């Protein structure tokens, strides 16, 4: 009775305050479909690499770029310092009136561009730094002009700096810089026939609003200008000889990165390297190494082809004004001229490359008509067009899936998951599931029975009708608890097998319908 009185009292309190002592919970056994989905080749392979052939068969069209060639190897503008010192040629002191211009000094300066002979350059970024030291006992104005330049508004680059009064014993120093971004240089000098040369002028005036000053041969002005961090956007002229070596570089090769083991016999494939030269100068490229590396198996296969270790000539690009038509060179790899089939069938996840490039190997053969846009230099891509026409033998795919469950969201204690498959693909699929620990390593497996049977096929291994099959996965309570509390990610592993020869072709309209049904023991829980 005491308990019932207590219950009733609690009931009243509940009705008044809606407070509960703990969650209400009970177990239920549910037998229900959960999700269904249709998978086609579009779902299994990324759209970006899938291409459909006229007969509706499917190819993988994969491109990976070799590491970009550093444009700086072609052309680099070193920091350039220009220093001037000006003294007064008066043995006896003279008085300079306000506004008097006492220095006017045009001069030519040359960039050290090695063997390059550039007559025009546009600056992407860079600056001119100045340091002016004055012993003139009045404010002075220094006007610095670089002739035959244009800023973004089309004006000649000219800047005026105000320097406070100084003395012989205590000279004043003005330090600063001006941006040269977007400024173009005509580098033909004053005469218009030179290269790498620009003309500048320094004018110095006494402050027109100041006082008269007295100077003598003991007074000086020092000017130091420095062109620093000049990054050209475009250059024209002869851009010189240079060479470049990149690598060995490990490049991710993602087309097969979900394949962990097994073998595949590929019927045909089209593989080539395309090199595009956007530089207005002749170039050469040499692929020293292309090594297919399967980090899962440890197997490596080096490409064997006549281009390996030999220079390939690249024609110069043509400047069309609004775009550049590159000089293209294509290197085809076939099973006859290379071991490319072995390279691909290694199912690599890395490609190790080493590339060497030369510019103007024959010197200035264009009479100074080279050009270089720094945002587009030389590109090299490795293309694979792989028709999905193959014989797969225990081809093992792995895909990590996050079930996104935890103790709060997943009321299931244990479950028997049945996957009902209507398979319209011409291959078997054996499913395995692994629990992953907190660090992503394999922790345990789930017991899976049955496998997804291949669709029925004709003599050409073309699908004639789909086949139904069931795969059952048991998730006992302890493993469910692990998923809820440790790591809800699982590794789905599917092992594919096709029929043997002839090669099985995958068509776009092939599909597999999957329905996931659970027989589960769940806890209903509410507060």
């Amino acid at each position, binding site marked *: 009775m005491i*308990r*019932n009185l207590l219950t009733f009292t609690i009931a009243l309190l509940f009705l008044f305050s809606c407070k509960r002592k703990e969650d209400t919970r009970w177990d239920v056994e549910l037998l229900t479909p959960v999700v269904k989905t249709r998978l086609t080749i579009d779902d299994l392979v990324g759209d970006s690499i899938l291409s459909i052939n006229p007969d509706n068969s499917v190819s993988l069209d994969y491109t990976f770029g070799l590491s970009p060639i550093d444009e700086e190897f072609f052309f680099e503008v070193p920091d350039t310092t220009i220093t001037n010192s000006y003294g007064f040629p008066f043995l006896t002191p003279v008085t300079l009136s306000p506004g008097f211009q006492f220095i006017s000094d045009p001069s030519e300066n040359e960039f050290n561009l090695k063997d390059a002979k550039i007559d025009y350059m546009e600056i992407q970024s860079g600056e001119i730094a100045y340091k002016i030291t004055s012993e003139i006992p009045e404010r002075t104005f220094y006007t610095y002009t670089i002739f035959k330049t244009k800023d973004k508004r089309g004006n000649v680059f000219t800047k005026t700096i105000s320097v406070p009064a100084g003395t012989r014993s205590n000279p004043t120093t003005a330090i600063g810089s001006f941006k040269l971004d977007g400024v173009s240089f005509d580098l033909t000098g004053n005469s218009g026939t030179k290269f790498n040369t620009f003309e500048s002028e320094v004018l110095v005036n006494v402050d027109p609003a100041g006082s008269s000053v007295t100077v003598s041969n003991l007074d000086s002005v020092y000017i130091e200008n420095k062109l620093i961090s000049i990054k050209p956007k475009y250059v024209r002229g002869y851009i010189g000889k240079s060479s470049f070596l990149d690598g060995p570089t490990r490049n991710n090769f993602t087309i097969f990165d979900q394949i962990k083991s097994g073998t595949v016999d590929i019927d045909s494939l089209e593989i080539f390297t395309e090199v595009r030269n956007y530089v207005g100068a002749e170039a050469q490229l040499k692929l020293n190494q292309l090594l297919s590396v399967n980090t899962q198996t440890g197997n490596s296969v080096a490409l064997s082809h006549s281009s390996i270790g030999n220079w390939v000539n690249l024609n110069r690009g043509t400047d069309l004004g609004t775009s550049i038509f590159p000089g293209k060179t294509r290197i085809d790899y076939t099973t006859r001229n290379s071991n490319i089939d072995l390279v691909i069938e290694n199912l690599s996840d890395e490609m190790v490359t080493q590339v060497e490039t030369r510019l103007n190997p024959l010197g200035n053969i264009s009479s100074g008509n080279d050009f270089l846009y720094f945002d587009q230099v030389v590109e090299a891509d490795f293309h694979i067009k792989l028709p999905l026409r193959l014989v797969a033998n225990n081809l093992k795919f792995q895909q990590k899936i996050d079930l996104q469950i935890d103790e709060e969201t997943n009321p299931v204690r244990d479950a028997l998951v049945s996957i009902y498959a209507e398979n319209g693909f011409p291959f078997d699929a054996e499913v395995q599931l692994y629990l992953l620990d907190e660090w992503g390593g394999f922790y345990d497996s789930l017991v899976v029975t049955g496998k997804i049977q291949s669709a029925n096929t004709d003599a050409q291994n073309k699908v004639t009708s789909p086949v139904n099959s069931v795969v059952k996965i048991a998730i006992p309570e302890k493993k469910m608890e692990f998923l809820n509390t440790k790591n809800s990610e699982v590794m789905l592993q599917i092992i594919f097998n096709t029929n043997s020869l002839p090669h099985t072709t995958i068509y776009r309209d092939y599909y597999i319908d999957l329905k996931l049904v659970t027989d589960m023991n769940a806890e209903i829980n509410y507060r």
Partner: protein
Amino acid sequence: MRAITSILILTFFSLSSQGQLDSASQSEKEWSPSYKIEAEFEANYGSTDLNNEFIDKLLFGGQITPELKDKVLKRTNNRNRFGVELNYEVKFTELTDTLFPSLPAYRYYISFGSYTNLSASYTKDLYKLAFYGNKQFENETAQIGKSNFTSYRFEKITFGLINQNESASFGISLIVGDQYSGFNFKQADLFTFTDGTDLSLEYDGKIRLSDPKRRGFMAFSGAGIGIDFETLVYKKMFRLKVTNLGVAFWKRNTSFSHTQETKEFDGVEISNVFSTSQEEFLENANTLLPEMTDQGFVTLLPTIIELHKKTNPELQSQPIYGIRYKFFSNYLPQLYGGIQHQLSSKFVVRGDVTWGGYSGLRLVVGAFYHTKSIQAGIQSTNLSGMFFQNGNGNGFSAFGTFLF
């Protein structure tokens, strides 16, 4: 709400003790009261099949074990009921004057009351489905239709007139709706295919939900009007009492559906099992639920009709019997019969056997005290439920009247 209820209870007990003091110090013949304050409180829960242990865990938390479920299942019939009621009311009556000269025998009263009810009627299959799951229905149909779930709470403010000799009264009320949830499944036949590959549901049901964000005390989520009246009938041998006859209109942020359809469920469709998200799953799963609109709705108030045999204060012992029914609340007609015995001039006890409402057969006992200025009573409306864990509910009511 808790604070107000506490005040009401304290008022009730303080009135009782104060009344005893007053009655002891005054001459009963000389004294004529001018006002009356009444407080009533009633709370009960019960079920035709769920026992107290089960209800306790359902309402207040705890593990409902398989053994407990099995025990309840044995008592479950094709139609079962469960309900919780919590009602209280305070009433002030002017005893010396009337507002209406044309009705000199009538006095006026004003009252405030609150009514909370959670109730369900359900089939055995629904119980099995809810507490065991659908696996046992593999290749079978679970008939969960003809089941209703209703939850409402409202307050009312009443103005009324009462006959001087309390033989009749009439009141009109403003209804302040706090919350309403109504699930009425006319038909819901759930077939589980072999191995659970598909579920099929033939459904004809109505869902009405008030504003989920406005559920508190005096929330005005809905509003309505109601009337109460009371009179003596059949040679003045019986007291007929009707409470909360009226309607409530629910318009604010409501959800409504009235659907008749057959649904075949073979899984929530997702675009790619390798790259799905919980959001995609829930979004697609929600499309399987009945489509809800924001249409407002009208509900009839859970009207209570009571017919009690009028007792004779001159008799020391006399039979008592009557009937109580509550509309739209999954309620069974409640019948009772028993005896009332006058222990002294001030104390009365009564006991009866009651059947219906939300519970089966049960014992009711009560004790009442009255003087000229005080009337008070306390009653267990489910004595058997109070004693036995297997009892089907519990109940308590109390009232106090203070005349001054």
